[in-house]
């Protein structure tokens, strides 16, 4: 009887409390960061308190703890200070002997990952496609040169450790950690390597996303030096295609899972759209089969209610502005052109278009392109187009007070709206005459 009582007692000791986990997780993050920041980069054996040494050891497991308790802490806004710690470890690694270097290398790997984990950035590739991260903290006094080591380290590590390469690319890409212009060529070279078809998919996607973030710099190819320009034009263009299509000649039939990926393809189209603005890229985009890839996307995206039709239209209209004979475009049917143009206007009132000067400047080109293909439009299509144009005009007029130079574009869109409206009216009237 007493034994039974003891066993019952044993069962009753299993209690639960969920209140402490958020508290201790937040405290751990806060305290751990503070301990790391206090480290001056010196010899850990001289740490009189031992706490820094422990924190250094904890780097091995801290990310796992934080990942498991991710919902219990607020993202750190001290990414720059955490990167300073990484820089100290990197400097220590560069100065240390062979054995110590491997220890520092492991610590650096963990510290970089901790920097991302503290900011609640996941290594999940799906996380890449969200809006650029903006949690680097305010009042940052770092100069771009302070982060050149990241580019150096990426160049050193991408062949051996793709996870670390991913972390660095995420920092330099979506997290917008700036490095000096002198390192740009080295960075693009590393990006090209990371886009290779022998690299894991998450790294290729991260490289694509980073290229997407710096697309305007790459697109303004005339502004960069000749050596970099040659490399970008000859190597970067085919590498981009590798990120979305690692095996040349892959078709939808033999790769149904990865052939289309909505977020990735939107990122890809935005990048190609930016590059297609510069005529010097056109030959490379055609020759490296980017246009073929875009045409293969038409069937999937031409009728979709996303931004894909806008960028697809933008790429194709910029490649063949006057319907010049561009061989690959011959395969696009008139109906596909029209569907694509019509749906391109669907999200032309979005912030992604209105707030981006290049997209905004493209609107008159889109007007001309739509005019060319609207002859086959049905009454329903025209009604839809007119309503989209109304939305665009409203959005443009709202911004007119802020930017007067947009007036010319508004006039063009208004005229086009009138044309579409007249065409709709005619269509209705003609149907009205015939139908009775």
């Amino acid at each position, binding site marked *: 009887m007493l*034994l039974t009582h003891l066993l019952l007692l044993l069962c009753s000791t299993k209690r639960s*409390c969920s*209140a*402490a*986990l958020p508290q201790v997780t937040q405290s751990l993050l806060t*305290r751990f960061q503070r301990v790391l920041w206090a480290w001056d980069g010196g010899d850990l054996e001289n740490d009189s*308190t031992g706490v820094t*040494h422990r924190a250094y050891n904890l780097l091995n497991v801290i990310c796992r*703890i934080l990942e498991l308790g991710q919902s219990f802490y607020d993202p750190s806004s001290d990414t720059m200070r955490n990167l300073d710690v990484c820089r100290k470890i990197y400097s220590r690694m560069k100065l240390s002997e062979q054995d110590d270097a491997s220890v520092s290398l492991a610590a650096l790997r963990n510290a970089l990952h901790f920097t991302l984990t503290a900011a609640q950035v996941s290594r999940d590739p799906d996380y890449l496609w969200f809006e650029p991260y903006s949690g680097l903290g305010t009042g940052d006094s770092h100069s771009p040169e302070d982060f050149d080591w990241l580019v150096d380290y990426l160049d050193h590590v991408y062949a051996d450790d793709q996870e670390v390469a991913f972390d660095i690319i995420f920092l330099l890409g979506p997290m917008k950690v700036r490095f000096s212009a002198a390192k740009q060529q080295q960075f693009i070279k590393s990006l090209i390597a990371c886009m290779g078809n022998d690299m894991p998919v998450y790294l290729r996607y991260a490289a694509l996303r980073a290229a997407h973030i710096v697309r305007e710099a790459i697109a303004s190819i005339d502004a960069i030096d000749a050596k970099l320009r040659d490399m970008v034009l000859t190597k970067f263009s085919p590498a981009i295609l590798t990120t979305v299509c690692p095996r040349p000649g892959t078709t939808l039939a033999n790769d149904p899972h990865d052939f289309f990926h909505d977020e990735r393809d939107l990122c890809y189209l935005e990048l190609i759209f930016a590059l297609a603005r510069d005529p010097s890229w056109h030959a490379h985009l055609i020759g490296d089969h980017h246009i073929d890839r875009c045409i293969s996307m038409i069937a999937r995206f031409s009728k979709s209610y996303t931004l894909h039709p806008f960028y697809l239209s933008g790429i194709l209209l910029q490649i063949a502005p006057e319907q010049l004979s561009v061989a690959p475009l011959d395969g696009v049917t008139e109906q596909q052109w029209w569907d694509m143009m019509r749906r391109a206007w669907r999200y032309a009132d979005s912030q992604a278009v209105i707030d981006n000067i290049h997209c905004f400047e493209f609107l008159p080109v889109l007007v001309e392109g739509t005019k060319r293909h609207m002859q086959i439009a049905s009454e329903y299509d025209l009604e839809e187009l007119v309503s989209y144009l109304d939305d665009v005009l409203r959005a443009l007029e709202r911004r007119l007070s802020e930017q007067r130079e947009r007036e010319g574009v508004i006039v063009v869109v208004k005229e086009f709206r009138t044309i579409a409206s007249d065409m709709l009216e005619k269509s209705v009237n003609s149907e009205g005459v015939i139908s009775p």
Partner: protein
Amino acid sequence: MRLMFVQSGLFSTVSSSFIVSMESNLSPDPSDTTNALLTQLVQIGLHNLTAAGFTPEDPASTWSPTASAVRIQMVAYASLSLSLLAAFGAVLGKQWIGYYKSKRYGRGSQEERGKRRQEMFDGLVTWYFDDVIQSFPVLLQLSLLLFEIALGAHMWYQQPSIAWVIIAITVSGFLFYLLTVMICLISPACPFQTPMSTVLRGTVHATGEFARCSLKLLSAALHTALRSLLLRSSTNFVDSEAQSLDQDSDVVVADDGTLSLDLPDMLPTSNLEAPSVKWLLETSTDPEVFITAARLVPLVEWPLDLDVSDMLPQLYDHFISCVGFDGQIVPSLEEKASACATALSYLYYGCVLHAHPDYINFFGSKKQDENVLYDVWRKDTANDTVVAMAVNLCLSGIPLDDISGPAANSVPALEQLLHLLPYHFVTGRVNQSIEVFAVEVISKLLSSSFSPSNQIIANCTVLACAMVGVQFDKQDIIRIDKRCS
């Protein structure tokens, strides 16, 4: 209690009969008046009217008891009252015990009844029930002493030679009692133990402790004063250097304020678990029950206000009882030895945390603490990791190479270790072996091969917090190791 009731009744009867016999000293003797009147009649018959007087003789009107008779009666009545009080106490005690016996379990499940019994038992301890019951025989002893004094004094005025016999026997008895008390003070194993000897022993021990502490404090104060006097001039440079180091380290170890965890309150009956297990370990003679109770030690919450330091030597004694002549654990007693070693280690951790920031030795001296734990670790093979950590807790700063034994690879074993590791960092008793081992334990428990529970995540987080210097309330450390999920 029944015996005391009978004894006090008998004694009251005896003392009453003697008091009645001594009662005559308090009232005038009627025969004195009769004799006076007869004397007066004889005088009148002899016509000696002058001697007979003109008023009848009444010696009672002028009689008063002697002061000694009153004092003797006072003592005698005090003796009678005390014996009656002892009888009354015996009746009450019998009632109290009857109530305890009938109500100690109450109703409900086995668990509820067990906890109820523990609650009642704790009440007995809290209200000094044992001391109160023990005081009733003292009343009877006091009553006997007073009775002997009264009897001796009474007889002294009656017949001193008889009184000498009574006084001699009384003094002999009293001296014998004092002798037994003194012997009990010298030797706790002496069988002549009485409540008086227990009380005196406690008083002597407390006085000794106080004197020793006072001497230690005095010598420490003297040492500090002398040191500061002698080294004042030479330490100026050293102090400034030390200060700069302290300033650097302040950034790291600066107290952010103790992290107070928002843990829900304990269940009302949860605070009975630890006393129940303690009681079982202290009183159980059934080996199976003892082993089960010892295994419960790591699982229950040991409140800080529950002093368990006295259990450590007991558990060590139990452990040693499992060791054979060859110095090895007897194979048939391995289970008991293992349970004892684990329980001993856990309770040692609790005691160390309880004493922190003071450093208290629980087996007499630091050396003895080390020896005991080291001895347990060397002999016990099943729980070497937990015990090894306890050794490390005691030998703070001394690395122990083989800290992780074969038992430290299963998840339950790792969870047990996870509960104990924060104690090292909270109390500052940490060395490199423990640091590396703590990271290893967290790494193993959070490995991606299985999905760790919230309890494991929380405990790993607490350990990591303790490692980087987050300050915890001691009570929270005790509670969180069993509760977080």
